[in-house]
């Protein structure tokens, strides 16, 4: 089995350690003896059309606008999605996957990529802090999704998108207690930074979608300690 992970525009959308998500995916595949290639693409380079998972991170307003313009001009992300690629966007990277998003003080809506049926606009107050959600359709400890959110945009879901999770602590999409969005193989979520490092089950879910096969569970005390610490911290604060 082989897998190509594409880290999209790290220099623009990567200020919150978001490259960690690509590292986590690559390592977790490698640990299962899957032949992995991690490709970094910067604006001006063409996106590969045959990538298996595209990872898009967070960034500031200006960077977000530059990134969406470059992605639309390139166009290959649409070809990749048509060919069955998985797309995973966090924070600003989540918003640009939608139909439109507002940035900055004017909140003038910018056209997004239209891969998720969502619209984002400036919310009443900036959401900053630990977030805990329950992954829809999942059960057990793996269904707790833990992360850190920092965004001023809030998101409404249209008919074609399903929420990824339900908020226990924090803001998430902001309007209705939901968090993130899923539409086919495109997934977006607000918790930035390497949310996949905190939630290995979500990382494995992306890998399984891309590979079309179920993967063995990997045990790791490091993840168990981290998840215990974060769940305890968010529940006592």
């Amino acid at each position, binding site marked *: 089995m082989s897998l190509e992970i594409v880290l999209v525009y790290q220099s*623009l959308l990567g*200020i*919150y*350690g978001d490259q960690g998500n690509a*590292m986590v995916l690559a390592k977790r595949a490698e640990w299962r003896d899957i032949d992995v290639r991690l490709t970094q693409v910067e604006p001006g380079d063409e996106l590969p059309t045959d990538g298996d998972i595209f990872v898009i991170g967070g960034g500031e307003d200006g960077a977000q606008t*530059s990134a969406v313009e470059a992605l639309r001009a390139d166009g290959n992300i649409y070809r990749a999605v048509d060919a069955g690629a998985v797309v995973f966007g966090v924070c600003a990277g989540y918003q640009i996957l939608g139909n439109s998003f507002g940035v900055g003080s004017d909140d003038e809506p910018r056209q997004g990529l239209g891969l998720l049926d969502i619209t984002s606009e400036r919310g009443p107050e900036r959401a900053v802090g630990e977030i805990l959600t329950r992954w829809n359709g999942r059960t057990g400890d793996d269904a707790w999704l833990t992360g850190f959110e920092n965004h001023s945009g809030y998101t409404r879901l249209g008919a074609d998108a399903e929420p990824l999770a339900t908020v226990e602590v924090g803001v998430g999409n902001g309007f209705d207690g939901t968090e993130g969005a899923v539409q086919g193989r495109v997934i977006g979520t607000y918790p930035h*930074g390497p949310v996949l*490092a905190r939630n290995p089950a979500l990382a494995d879910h992306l890998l399984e979608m891309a590979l079309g096969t179920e993967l063995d569970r990997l045990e790791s005390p490091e993840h168990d300690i981290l998840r215990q610490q974060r769940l305890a911290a968010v529940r006592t604060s």
Partner: protein
Amino acid sequence: MDAMSSAELDRRATPARFTRAETLRLQTAHAAGSAAALASRLARRGSGASIRGKVMERLDPRSLEKLLQGRRIAMVSGTNGKTTTTHLLAAALRAGLGAAADRLVTNADGANLHYGIASALGQKPDADIAVLETDERVVADVVRMGRPEVMVLLNFSRDQLDRHHEITSMGRAWRDALEAAGADGPVVVASAEEPLIVWACRGARKVIWVDTQSVWNADSALCPECGARIERVEADTDSSTPGRWWCTGCSLAKPTPTWRVSNEVIVDPEGTIWHPKLQVPGQFNVSNAACALAAADLMGVGTSDAIRGMRTVTSPAGRFATATFGDTEARLMLAKNPAGWAEALPILTCDDVVLAIDSVAADGKDVSWLWDVQFEQLVGKNVVVTGPRCGDLSVRLLYAGVEHRVQPDLSQAMRMHSGRIDVLSTYTPFQKLRKLGGLA
């Protein structure tokens, strides 16, 4: 050149002129502040620097402005390295002053906001040369009130991830203050590596550029002037070709530096190569020294005198100091933010290492930056991770392939090695470790 320089150092500042009433008010405020500081020290609540400044400012709101006047001021700011650079520059100027070293005042304890600066100045009213570590947030005020002669801007990165959006507006405040000062403004010594610094310096009357070989540029993807993307070509150390950067949308680009850092040496504007041989470790401290040398030169101290002085600096405000925990000798190093960690990891020389991390406000609540730092370089070392966020660091090390042990409790973690070790820590655990190790 040295002879000419020292003549310049003899130059006195224009004395401040206040009415009798104004002077009296400042003196009363200072006396009250000192009493409060003494009480604070007796109660073991720290050095009292900040409480002294606070009381002074309450009794005389113009105290800082008055205290800044009548002095020749060199100020030092930037996200990382301010404390060490302030110590290096102060030591360089003391070496130049020789027997007259009393003429110098500096806030050596790292108290770098209004109160801390006022407190240091209030204690030496007759010192006519001031070397001031200045927090990024009060740079504009000190430029406006103190009319410094020299201003060192080391670097400018996000101190804390959850405050990232603030750095552009701070850069704008610097630029506005420099522009408003006009011909009375300071000569700026600044790193040529960072677009935001170069942009902020567009307001300055004169800039001495230093090529600091910064290892961190993750915070400058977009042009602060026009918002277009910044392109970079990294330095090639083999052919000693310096790095370059330029904006793809406007004329902002890396200026030509006159001082240069190349590995362990500093090259001055005439092309003379200096070996600083500092006691403080690391490539980044060579860069700090280059900035301090350029500033010392502007204040009137020749480079060989300045270097002689800088070599006496060992442990600025407790950084790099060695503490004892049982049979462990630990060198304590502070890295407050991602750029600081990126700079400090290469100088961990011991095989046994403790990494301590917390996420209260002073450390930054968001530890996502762990994934922007190359922990992979620690492979092969014996690592212990500790502090309230040790779980995050442990997972980061798992993916970096670094074997390690986890011990959340700081004092127990310090007993998991023996002999000489290196300890790298964010702000809050660093302060705790200094206490545990008997240094504070």
